[in-house]
């Protein structure tokens, strides 16, 4: 009788990376459904194509790197990257946008740096920034949320727009994006809430004037606020499932809130308030799904707090003073750059190495 030899510990928590990634995808579901409801079918096309491209790119990269593609694909990390990128870009952006973004994220940002676990930048955000800089027009062409759009495209029209940039009837995306303001003359192309506020403020309007726009019907912008609440819900699920720790979301949201409150106190007319910062953009999505990417975040608990605080502050600074309203991606990438130095200086004190208190 021969016995099996193994190294201790012999017991393992049955929670694999693949399972964790599944949970992340599951937790994205509320936000995804909210986006689907408010911004139309496009997000489904984006997601499907992104996942297909990501899996293909991942396989090819693994083969090129002499790894078994099957085992590499099992960890679901490529799908998560694809999903994060797909929900970040305008739902009706042309198909090649998401293809380029996904390829860049998987091939360059992930595999050229050594594959899963080795990338220093968040692949989805790096892909997003590449797209934003390269294709600013397509990347800012968000649909007005349901209820505001005068010609919300149906499933077929959305598919046509996604593939050919024209609906079946020949309307362009620009035409579809117009919102009904009562008279044809006033029909304007709709910008995202943050973009709108930024543009208005830069044109000399006060915050309250900027918020006169009819898209700020609710608490922080029609549609967007609900998408944010949905991602917050998913994030709380991740916390409850212990997929992520509280440090990053709390520190990031905390830092952003403090900045926003201070801004509102000192320049209430010129700087958007807390509600806008937390619920009008990608804040909740970033706090729970982007900044928490373990690979590109700091590792120690203390390091995570610093890292996420940095992201929160950077988001505020970029939104308030930067050229782009899309602060999250830039803030995350900048914080990624700081991770090695944060890790270096936040090493916990090993047992027994504590300096004697005298």
């Amino acid at each position, binding site marked *: 009788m021969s016995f099996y*030899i*193994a190294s201790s510990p012999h017991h393992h*928590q049955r929670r694999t990376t693949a399972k964790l990634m599944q949970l992340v995808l599951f937790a994205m579901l509320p936000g995804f459904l909210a986006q689907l409801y408010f911004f139309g079918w496009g997000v489904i096309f984006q997601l499907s194509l992104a996942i297909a491209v990501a899996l293909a790119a991942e396989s090819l990269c693994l083969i090129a790197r002499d790894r078994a593609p099957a085992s590499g694909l099992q960890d679901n990390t490529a799908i998560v990257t694809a999903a994060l990128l797909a929900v970040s870009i305008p739902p009706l952006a042309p198909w090649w946008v998401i293809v380029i973004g996904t390829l860049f994220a998987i091939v360059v940002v992930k595999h050229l740096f050594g594959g899963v676990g080795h990338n220093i930048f968040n692949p989805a955000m790096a892909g997003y920034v590449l797209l934003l800089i390269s294709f600013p027009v397509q990347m800012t062409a968000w649909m007005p949320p349901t209820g505001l759009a005068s010609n919300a495209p149906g499933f077929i029209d959305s598919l046509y727009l996604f593939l050919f940039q024209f609906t079946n009837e020949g309307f362009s995306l620009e035409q579809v994006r117009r919102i009904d303001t009562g008279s044809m003359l006033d029909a304007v192309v709709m910008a995202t809430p943050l973009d709108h506020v930024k543009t208005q403020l830069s044109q000399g309007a006060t915050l309250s004037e900027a918020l006169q726009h009819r898209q700020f019907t609710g608490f922080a912008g029609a549609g967007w606020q609900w998408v944010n609440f949905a991602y917050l819900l998913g994030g709380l699920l991740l916390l409850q499932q212990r997929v992520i720790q509280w440090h990053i979301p709390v520190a990031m949201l905390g830092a952003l809130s403090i900045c926003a409150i201070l801004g509102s106190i000192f320049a209430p007319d010129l700087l958007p308030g807390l509600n806008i910062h937390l619920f009008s953009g990608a804040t909740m999505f970033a706090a729970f799904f982007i900044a928490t990417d373990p690979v590109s975040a700091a590792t*120690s608990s203390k390091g995570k707090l610093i890292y996420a605080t940095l992201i929160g502050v950077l988001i505020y600074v970029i939104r308030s003073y930067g050229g782009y309203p899309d602060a999250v991606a830039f803030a995350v990438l900048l914080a990624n750059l700081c991770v090695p130095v944060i890790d270096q200086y936040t090493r916990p004190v090993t047992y027994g190495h504590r300096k004697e208190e005298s």
Partner: protein
Amino acid sequence: MAIDISATSKLWSFPGGIHPPERKAPANMTAIQRFPLPPVLFIPLRQHAGEPGELCVAVGDYVLKGQPLTIPGVDNGLPVHASTSGTITAIQQHPLNHPSGLTGLTLCLEPDGKDAWYPRQPIANIDAISQREVLQHLQAMGIAGLGGAGFPTARKVAGARNIDVLIINGVECEPYIVSDDRLMREHAGEILAGSLLLQKLTSAKQLVIAIEDNKPEAAAAFAAAIHDSNATDTDTTELKGAAAVLKIVPTRYPSGGEKQLIQILTGKQVPVRGLPADIGILMQNVGTAFAVARAIHHGEPLLERVVTITGEAVHQPGTAWALLGTPIEYLLAQSGFRAQEKKQRVIMGGPMMGFTVTNLQIPVIKTTNCILAPSQKELAPAEAEMACIRCGACEIACPASLLPQQLQWLAKAKDYDGLKQHNLADCIECGACAYVCPSQIPLVQYYRQAKAEIREQAIEQQKAEIARQRFEARQARLEREKEERLAKHKKAAEARKAAQAAQAARQTESSTDGEQDPVKAALARVKAKKAQQDRGVEPAKSEQKDAVAAAVARAKAKKAERDANAESTPATTEKKDAVAAAVARAKAKKAERERLAKLEAENIGDSENKQNATNNKGNENS
């Protein structure tokens, strides 16, 4: 700051830790069993940390239960005893109860079934004899720490000075293991008695008994024992039960690790490379306290211990009093072990730190606390390792506040300096990091390997250093010898010159004297030359023809030469060099001794970890 622990004093916490399924039931539901005598016992000479004793029996000898089979000997090793009466049938190499699977010298004892005792010598009153004598008795009884590495108890107690708190560790935090739990439930009184003896021996100001809150029955038994002790021993309450504090600690693995338990109870940390005694703490396992009580009150050597036999491949899981030397196959057979078809593991110790064994003939030794035969369903074998995603779960779990994932990268890169910088040596190999790792990375395995490699490297460096010192010493010696030779030659040449000059002078003199005797002159010259060759100094003044004068001159020359030699440095240098060489040798020896000491310390640390593997975490380990 003196430590003061009371029943109500606050509990601290240690960072990290995990909550693996405990699975203490059903093994803890039944009383400790006593199986029939096994057909054969394999008693290894070395069952504990430190040197083995020296054999004092031979093949064919009939031995009685409790009879020493080894004596401390020159190495002052811990003796082993005959676990029952019977005949020594062989003394041979036998597989050891050790992760390496190596063999070691083992006595084979065939029980005769009588279980006849060797004369026992209890100590009636430990106050009547000195602490040293009590410790000698404990050593003679073979008492070693039963929770950790099996460190000889007498030595641990003797080495501890200024102890504030004696902690009796009944935490037993590793899943499955219930040996201490059952022992506490059934023998709390005797454990308490042993603890009080230990307290007396260490002069500890306080006695604290720590139990995890998942063992309420054991805690209740202890509370009752403390109460009884107070009731019966009113005259000595000052040192007795009144000082014994029962502390219930929250269940969290590895709270039973010595360092972690100290942190929970006192908030203090054992300084790196230090001992608990450095901060006034001594820890002993409940099983050790029990063995101390038996040894002192009953004169019984350490012959048996409680072993948990559990896992789904065992039909009647439970605990048993196992004689030291019992092959684990026998215990498994008695418990209804049936191996599975595939990948059956038999683990010495618990699921977190135990090691798998391949040979069931290995014996129960002083540090064996659990034999775990799990099914694949309850403890699934490890899956293929995947890439680290830097999630940091390991860091959150690490009770030593290390950076497990960083260590893993460094270990894979064989960056030994980096590993040392990240305090790999402080890893207690508890396995919490590998338990939580979502990528199924066998982290502890990497650390163990790296530790072994670092140790190997240190040994190599030491060897190279000794070789270098030797080489340099040899070079210095050769150089010195060469110089000495040169100096000798130079002196000889000078003497020769002087002799020639003297001769020339003599010839002039003799010619002026007009008294010429060519034959004598020639003889003198030959003599002079010879003398020159002999010792390089010319016995001058051979001008006089009478031999007496010549002899006097020779004697003088000899003396002069001796003086010259005495003056000239060679002798001194030689002496100096000899001193230098001796110093170098002493230094090398010292370095070697230090290295050995360090190695030993590491070994202890290492075996501590292994033993922790063998044993459950919930015990004193050192």
